[in-house]
């Protein structure tokens, strides 16, 4: 298949819990974006985000593992090449655009350097195909207005994500109490402008919001994003030339080294709603500000066919039910992303609470009670039988005894 024009690639970034998947879901529900290929990058050992993004049959999704910014060499180039290859071989329908949803911890610099002319040099057939067939056509950054100030102060990645964006989408502006507690958009905008002076800023819940326009292909030129962005991209190239972009050849995570870890929790049996609530409350109490993100799909005992989606961003937890499991995998799976939290503690907590469900407990209690009664009855019966036999063998009947007693 001949590609006349490079296929536009839009990067959707934003810190953990900023609402990227929600935006993507809404976009993919639109007919105008039916011919969209989606690359979802997840940070963690088990994939959840790809189940939470509803993809129509006409769309194609590739889920990468690990973190785009951390895996050595060119993960984004690999994913784009796979898409191209699948389209070429007609394994998938053709698509008109690609959206890459990064992990919330992604550093955009290495990703952008891989798909920008003048970035990382193309090496080999794959890289040249990607350079010829795809072009970067926008970087959208979702910003949670209730958390952004604190997050930007504490996480370098958050600041970089904002700086690279040519369109900033303010999310969660509709949250009553939390939005009211936030500094307000008028106070927030100058702080955003200090990091990114040029990006278009739109309110996700504003009357004028046009999601299609946010993701419309456009010209993205890194040098127009300001001196910081230019410097970071140049630094990435310089470090890559030194072979020091990543911390080891296997692509181990930058985030692990900075104390951010991802814990995967799996449970094949349905969980009781009370146990889940207890787990979440304990996790929040144990984690405190170290708990960055909690997300998962949970099979509940009360209705195992309708899984519960759990979204947690630091202290705020959202939950809702899906009408059905999004895939054949019906295991409860949760990912906890935390900063310096003891993995063993979290896993022990999860195992202690969900390792045995309330129903299983009830069944076990009934089984044990039933066995106990049965065992008691058997033992009692056996004792009675033995007693009767012993009596019959060693105690002669009184009548006979009386009858045989000699008279003196």
């Amino acid at each position, binding site marked *: 298949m001949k590609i006349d024009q490079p296929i536009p690639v839009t990067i959707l970034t934003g810190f953990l819990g900023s609402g990227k998947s929600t935006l993507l879901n809404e976009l993919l529900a639109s007919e105008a974006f039916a011919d969209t290929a989606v690359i979802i990058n997840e940070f963690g050992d088990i994939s959840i985000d790809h189940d939470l993004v509803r993809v129509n049959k006409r769309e194609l999704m590739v889920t990468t593992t690990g973190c785009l910014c951390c895996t050595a060499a060119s993960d984004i180039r690999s994913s784009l090449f796979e898409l191209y290859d699948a389209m070429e071989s007609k394994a998938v329908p053709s698509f008109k655009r690609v959206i890459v949803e990064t992990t919330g911890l992604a550093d955009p610099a290495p990703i952008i350097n891989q798909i920008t002319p003048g970035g990382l040099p193309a090496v080999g057939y794959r890289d040249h195909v990607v350079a010829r067939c795809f072009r970067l056509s926008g970087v959208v950054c979702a910003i949670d207005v209730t958390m952004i100030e604190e997050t930007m102060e504490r996480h370098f990645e958050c600041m970089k994500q904002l700086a690279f964006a040519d369109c900033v989408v303010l999310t969660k502006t509709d949250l009553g109490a939390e939005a009211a507690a936030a500094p307000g958009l008028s106070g927030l905008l100058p702080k955003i402008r200090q990091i990114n002076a040029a990006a278009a800023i739109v309110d996700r819940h504003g009357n004028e919001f046009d999601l299609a326009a946010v993701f419309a292909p456009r010209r993205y030129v890194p040098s127009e994003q300001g001196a910081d962005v*230019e*410097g970071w991209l*140049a630094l990435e190239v*310089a470090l890559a030339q030194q072979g020091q972009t990543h911390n080891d050849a296997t692509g181990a995570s930058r985030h692990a080294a*900075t104390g951010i870890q991802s814990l995967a929790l799996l449970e094949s049996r349905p969980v009781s709603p009370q146990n889940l609530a207890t787990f979440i409350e304990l996790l929040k109490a144990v984690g405190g500000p170290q708990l960055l993100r909690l997300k998962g799909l949970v099979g509940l005992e009360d209705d195992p066919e309708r899984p519960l989606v759990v979204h947690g961003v630091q202290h705020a937890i959202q939950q809702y039910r899906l009408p059905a499991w999004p895939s054949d995998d019906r295991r409860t799976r949760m990912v906890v992303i935390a900063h310096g939290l003891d993995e063993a503690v979290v896993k022990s907590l999860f195992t202690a609470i969900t390792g045995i469900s309330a129903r299983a407990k009830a069944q076990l209690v009934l089984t044990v009670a039933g066995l106990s009664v049965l065992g008691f009855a058997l033992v009692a019966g056996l004792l009675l039988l033995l007693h009767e036999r012993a009596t019959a063998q060693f105690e002669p009947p009184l009548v006979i005894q009386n009858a045989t007693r000699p008279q003196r």
Partner: protein
Amino acid sequence: MPKIALTMGRRVQRTGYPQAVQELKLQTQKLLGLSDDVTISVSELTCREPGCPDVETVVAILRDEEKPIIARIHKSIPDVTLDELKAALI
């Protein structure tokens, strides 16, 4: 002016990333007498060297047609002091 991580010697008050990055750039420019057209990039990476702290601040001086100068401090950006920056750059 608030006291920040780059106060001489011991850190006085920890600040957030946006301010700390700008301060590091300004101090680098001042220490090396760089003009405004020289790009100074401040980033935070991990360190691969055995025995080093996990996080490192990387300060790069990037000039057209010249090999970049890259200084490393084995701390996160907001924790870097002026003394440490000076020692890494000069």
